[in-house]
């Protein structure tokens, strides 16, 4: 097991005490909600950190990979809609097979016809006619599917498996998309790569938004099954009531009136069930986070990790030493994206709903990057720390701003126009904080709060 430095212990202590602090001030429920999102953010950040921190491969497609993870959650857990399959399954199957045939024939032509003009001509003819034929089958099928009970269904549904499997499937989905993107774009210079991955992630999200047969599009998928018990079931199960009674026995014994006691117990059970659900999520997420953290650290310390650092620090030299830079870049890009995909599936699991229009680059790409930069690229603990601190700041910015504005405008009248306007725009101050944090860190601590450890071995 790795040993932490002293300042790393300080960071861990700060993280834990933040949640205890919020727990006492704003209540344990709020604290756990923030904690769950922090853990998911930390996993996303580790994913980006692996490609950027280890190998210097930039990945601005976070939003797209998260969305792929979310799609996996829908496809794995939603019960199948047989009617949709009956009306549209065949058409979709045919168009899918035709698409594969089209790709194969284009590849075949590109390989075997040497003359450039003939090759272009033949390829473009095949592609145009192929697309027209495929569109015919495809549009028919998708229209049929979308017409199946559009108010509650209108898409293919999923496999009806427990949603927890989707965390793995989500990783594979994101990895698949990342493989295609990597094949296309990884040869580009870093800032071009940033723009291209950002653009492709927008394409991924717009496909999910508008292909209703697949993801229900902007109509959203709601009511995904949870991996943890529901509050309502907990409140009626004996063991949970006994547990709450046991935990609060001291408090309850002080109340002598039996009716009053029952009422207090009921309230405690309602509160407790909410906290129990969030706590079980937190435990599941923490397990995933520790697994990823463990393997990420192992990989970083392994010869492979050393090779990655060599490639990052001097590509030319690494290439001269016989390392296949292009292949390694692709591998690490795919691994990073897969971890982000896992986080995406977990995010949808936590919310219990999939809203494709909710994926916006500001929230799901740039904030994650701020987490990476602030935490410290190249250090997994730093990534976790960045995820925790930035998400915490993102949530707690609003109450903090309200407090500051109220203090600053104490002299003004309560219905002063400026004061009211400022209080109205409280939610936007978090962007200001994020920007300032990023600028300050980049200026005064460019390696992040917990920088990468320099290894002399």
């Amino acid at each position, binding site marked *: 097991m790795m040993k932490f430095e002293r300042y790393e212990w300080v960071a861990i202590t700060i993280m834990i005490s933040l949640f205890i602090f919020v727990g006492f001030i704003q209540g344990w429920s709020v604290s756990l909600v923030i904690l769950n999102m922090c853990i998911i953010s930390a996993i996303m950040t580790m994913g980006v950190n692996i490609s950027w921190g280890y190998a210097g491969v*930039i990945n601005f497609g976070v939003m797209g990979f998260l969305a792929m993870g979310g799609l996996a959650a829908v496809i794995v857990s939603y019960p199948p809609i047989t009617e949709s399959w009956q009306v549209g399954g065949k058409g979709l199957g045919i168009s899918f097979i035709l698409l594969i045939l089209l790709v194969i024939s284009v590849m075949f032509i590109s390989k075997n016809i040497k003359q450039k003009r003939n090759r272009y001509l033949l390829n473009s003819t095949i592609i145009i006619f192929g697309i027209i034929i495929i569109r015919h089958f495809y549009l028919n099928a998708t229209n049929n599917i979308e017409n199946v009970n559009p108010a509650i269904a209108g898409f293919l549904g999923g496999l009806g498996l427990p949603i927890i499997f989707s965390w793995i499937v989500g990783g594979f989905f994101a990895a698949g998309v990342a493989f295609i993107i990597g094949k*296309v*774009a990884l*040869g*580009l*210079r*870093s*800032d*071009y790569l*940033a*723009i*291209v991955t*950002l*653009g*492709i992630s*927008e*394409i991924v999200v*717009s*496909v999910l*938004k*508008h292909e209703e047969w697949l993801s229900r599009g902007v109509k959203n998928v709601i009511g995904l099954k949870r991996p943890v018990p529901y509050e309502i079931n907990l409140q009626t199960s004996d063991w949970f009531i006994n547990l709450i009674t046991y935990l609060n026995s001291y408090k309850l014994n002080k109340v002598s009136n039996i009716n009053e006691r029952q009422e207090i117990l009921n309230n405690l059970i309602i509160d407790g069930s909410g906290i129990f659900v969030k706590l079980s999520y937190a435990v599941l997420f923490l397990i995933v986070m520790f697994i990823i953290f463990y393997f990420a650290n192992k990989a970083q310390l392994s010869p492979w990790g050393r090779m990655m650092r060599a490639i990052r620090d001097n590509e030319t030299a690494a290439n001269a030493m016989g390392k296949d830079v292009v292949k390694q870049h692709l591998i690490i890009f795919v691994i990073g994206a897969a971890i982000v995909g896992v986080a995406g599936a977990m995010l949808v699991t936590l919310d219990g709903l999939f809203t494709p229009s909710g994926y916006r*680059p*500001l929230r799901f790409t*740039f904030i994650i*990057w*701020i987490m990476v*930069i602030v935490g410290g690229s190249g250090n997994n603990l730093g990534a976790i720390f960045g995820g925790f601190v930035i998400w915490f700041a993102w949530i707690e910015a609003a109450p903090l701003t309200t407090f500051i504005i109220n203090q600053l405008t104490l002299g003004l009248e309560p219905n002063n126009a400026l004061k009211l306007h*400022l209080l*109205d*725009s409280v939610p*936007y*101050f*978090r*962007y*200001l904080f*994020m*920007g*300032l944090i*990023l*600028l300050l860190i*980049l*200026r005064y601590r*460019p390696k992040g709060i917990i920088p990468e450890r320099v290894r002399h071995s």
Partner: protein
Amino acid sequence: MIDFLNSIVVLLNFIIIPGISYGSQLALGALGVTFVYAILRFANFAHGEIMSFGAMITILFTWFFQSQNINLGILPTALLALPLGILASIILCIISDKFVFQYYRYQKSVPVVLAMVSIGVMFVINAIIRIVIGTETIKFSDGQKFLMKAKQFKVMTGLNEGLALKSSQVITILITIALLTFTFWFLQKTKTGKSMRAFSDNEDLALLSGINPDRVVFTTWIIVGILACVAGTLYGLDKSYKPIIYLNLVLPIFASAIVGGIGNPFGAVIGGYVIAFSEIMVTYAYKKFFVYLLPGPLEPSGLVQLLSTDYKFAVSFSILVIVLLIRPSGIFKGKVL
């Protein structure tokens, strides 16, 4: 013959005129991005927000003028406020350079770090805009809305199809022509422009021959401020002003700049039009056009639409990806890469 004319009018009304005006807005934006890329050598993610900021200041002054009953008759009042908006965005650019970008330039940081820094700047400007003006959609065009209404055109020519000409479209096209002429004249003919080109071509050589880098950078930010504010205001005038739109607009703008060959001003302009026209042409339903052009039995039954309009933004990135695959340096060879 009449049918042929009708089909041409359909194309003009739904593709060519909107394409030119949207393309002009993208071209001005892409030109700004390309200037930063050529001189300061980084991808400026904050460009969209600079556009938005300029448009916001213009709107604020437009409201002020409107409340004072100052207007330009048939022209939108925003044109009167535009110089003030330009001034504000130039100041914004120079402040952000002085306090943020300059440090990294002196440190000779790698382009990726500067791109990250520009994301920080983007967040800050974004927050300022939202705090000042909120996130609501704002329509601020006044004056005469149409130069020619579809009905007038029908009466005038006797054709079935109308041709509408919005004044904002004409203003966009005229201002773009004027601004592009000025920019290229400046780059080709003036001493400062020449030193900028020299600096972008070979920094060391330019420094050796006595060009002051701070002056070049200063001039660049002034030009970027002008271009960004005009592009942002024209876009807001033509469609409507909404702070969130400008973040989405950054990507087509980057696509335009890269497609044309980043670092090459002429390429950026062409790239803007390429992206705009492909976005509109790929998502337009050609049914009406073919109904006029083809004889009865051949008329199409469907909409004859390649992609639904939902994919408008996706089209520009697809073109970006295709261009990068086939010709990584853009249509006109960019300077770097």
